[in-house]
């Protein structure tokens, strides 16, 4: 059974992704540029403060960053550069945007990866257990706790964790230590609070989704068949029921992954001072450093689009009945 239609589908979706990404870059670019202040302003303010002659420098700086040209020209330049893999120059950090992203993406990545793994693993396990034990005390407790988990604002949870474990108990550092080597136990320890902060909401969500997806499948005919075959309960639930429950679950988990990149992860990075993409784009916004803002938005959008595509393609393997035409 070939999947030749899948290749056409992927190509179609990739073209679509590029178009959407282009649209979003344009919107962001316009938004940033119609802003009341010019990137040069901040520099000028600094210059003026140090007693230099502002009027001379203004034109020099504006020419340096190309912001003296009309906005359309700037936009055209930017797009042309983008296609040549030149993401622009970051005013506030004085380095190419691409280098800035290269040094900082890993902090977001490790946070999101660890949180997702933690949340998906525990959430699915608890969800399955809760569904199997439906209407028992364990199930009620899990459901109630998952309500609390999805309702607790994650940035507040982060602050509370800092208050309890850093300020009061002194077990963890309140701020992420950027000097730690990435693959070290200390780094892992430094990520414990951030991962709990970001992961709790996801975990609670996964408990609820898994429970409901499992409940939908546990009473299906094929589960009874699996039991009638003499399979142990572990296989009946873990293989036959769960393999079907994965289908809706997978979509939700992937969608969540796309949305936390600029939701929960963003806030978590700010609370703990993790220098990931969220943090640098946040700083860039306040510094009027628009190439960074546009670049991070572009990366985020593209990431979401790719996650969506991967989800849809993987789905055809998870569910043999699906065909996109």
């Amino acid at each position, binding site marked *: 059974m070939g999947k030749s239609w899948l290749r056409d589908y992927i190509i179609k979706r990739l073209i679509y992704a590029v178009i*959407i990404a282009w*649209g*979003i870059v344009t*919107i*962001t670019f316009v*938004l*940033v540029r*119609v*802003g*009341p202040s010019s990137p040069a302003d901040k520099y000028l303010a600094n210059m003026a403060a140090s007693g230099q002659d502002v009027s001379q420098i203004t034109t020099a700086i504006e020419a340096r960053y190309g912001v003296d040209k009309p906005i359309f020209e700037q936009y055209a330049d930017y797009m042309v550069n983008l296609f040549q893999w030149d993401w622009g120059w970051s005013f506030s950090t004085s380095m190419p945007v691409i280098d800035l992203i290269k040094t900082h993406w890993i902090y977001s990545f490790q946070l999101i990866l660890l949180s997702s793994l933690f949340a998906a693993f525990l959430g699915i396990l608890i969800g399955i257990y809760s569904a199997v034990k439906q209407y028992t005390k364990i199930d009620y407790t899990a459901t*109630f706790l998952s*309500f*609390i988990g*999805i*309702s*607790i*604002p994650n*940035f*507040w949870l982060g*602050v*509370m964790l*800092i*208050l309890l474990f850093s*300020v009061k108990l002194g077990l963890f550092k*309140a701020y992420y230590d950027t000097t730690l080597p990435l693959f070290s136990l200390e780094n892992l320890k430094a990520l414990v609070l951030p991962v709990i902060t970001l992961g709790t909401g996801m975990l609670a969500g996964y408990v609820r989704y898994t429970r409901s997806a499992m409940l939908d499948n546990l009473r299906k005919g094929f589960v009874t068949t699996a039991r009638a075959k003499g399979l142990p309960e572990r296989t009946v639930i873990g293989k036959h029921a769960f393999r079907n429950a994965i289908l809706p679950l997978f979509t939700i988990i992937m969608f969540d992954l796309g*949305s936390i*990149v*600029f*939701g929960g992860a*963003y*806030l978590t990075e*700010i*609370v703990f001072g993790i220098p990931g993409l969220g943090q640098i*784009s*946040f700083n860039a*916004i*306040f510094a009027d450093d628009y190439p960074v*803002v546009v670049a*991070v*938005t572009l990366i*985020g*959008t593209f990431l*979401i*689009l790719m996650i*969506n595509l991967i989800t849809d393609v993987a789905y055809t393997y998870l569910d043999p009945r699906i065909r996109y035409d």
Partner: protein
Amino acid sequence: MTERLQNIARKIGGPLYSNRRLIEYYWQRTQRNKLAVLGLSFIAFLILLALIGPFFTLDPTLVNFEENNLPPVGFATEESVYNIYTDEFTTTEISGTWKHPLGTDSKGRDMLAMIISGARISLQVGLIATGIAITLGTIIGVLSAYLGGWADNILMRFTDVMMTFPFFLLLVLIVFIFGPSLALIVLVIGITGWTGTARLLRSEALSLRTRDFVTAAKALGASDGRVIFGHLIPNVASLIIVIATLSIPGVILAEAALSFIGLGDPTTTSWGIILNSGQQSLDTAWWIAVEPGIMLFLTVLAFNFLGDGLRDAFDPKSNI
């Protein structure tokens, strides 16, 4: 027997607002869910607090450095004061007073008054922004389903693009560029938050579109507007209520998050803004960060409980 009638009524799916019996029936079902009732009670309490609370509390903007960082009643903190004459630190214990039941912040403002004023803001943001988002989502979703064809295609592609946009980053960006005002925040959340509603209502309306009463209305010569507003929308009312209830917490959280990172409307005392200032004084005055967070958490929890209960009540599948 009555239950059976109600069941039939529910299957026919009559317009919610014109059917008292249906509303009573749903209300009964919702009431069965204790957590939903608990959630509703808390929301009612919060609304009351926001409406009449400010008449009984101190002015939330009243700064008083004589009484700053006072702990809540029943708690005590130690404060080190440097005495310039004796050149030594003296540690005094400060306990909460009934004048400021929830303590004061670093500027000596009354926490209770600020929390109540924050409740007002959170509810305003939650209700108005959700209102905008739901209205937009309903119109776009139902229109898309009703018109079909290229109009449906364009509207849904547009929805896809909106869904792909990193929403929170957009929010941060717009608020930063145009300045933090509550009205802008509410507007932006409302205008960007309709996508999920549109999708859900489109699929619901698609299935309704082919139902007999819609065909009958069209056959009787009803205009498109009449079919949409008179027949389709009333029949998805229950779904709209559920979506609205479950969207409010997200909206409240978005405003709080925005305020928390320093982009809140500085003329207000929203919970997020209090939390932001509280984060900076965690080691001296923990309650400033704890109190608004608890309120935020409880409010979100209450709406989630209620929304979940309503969904169970409206969802025939949960009847088993």
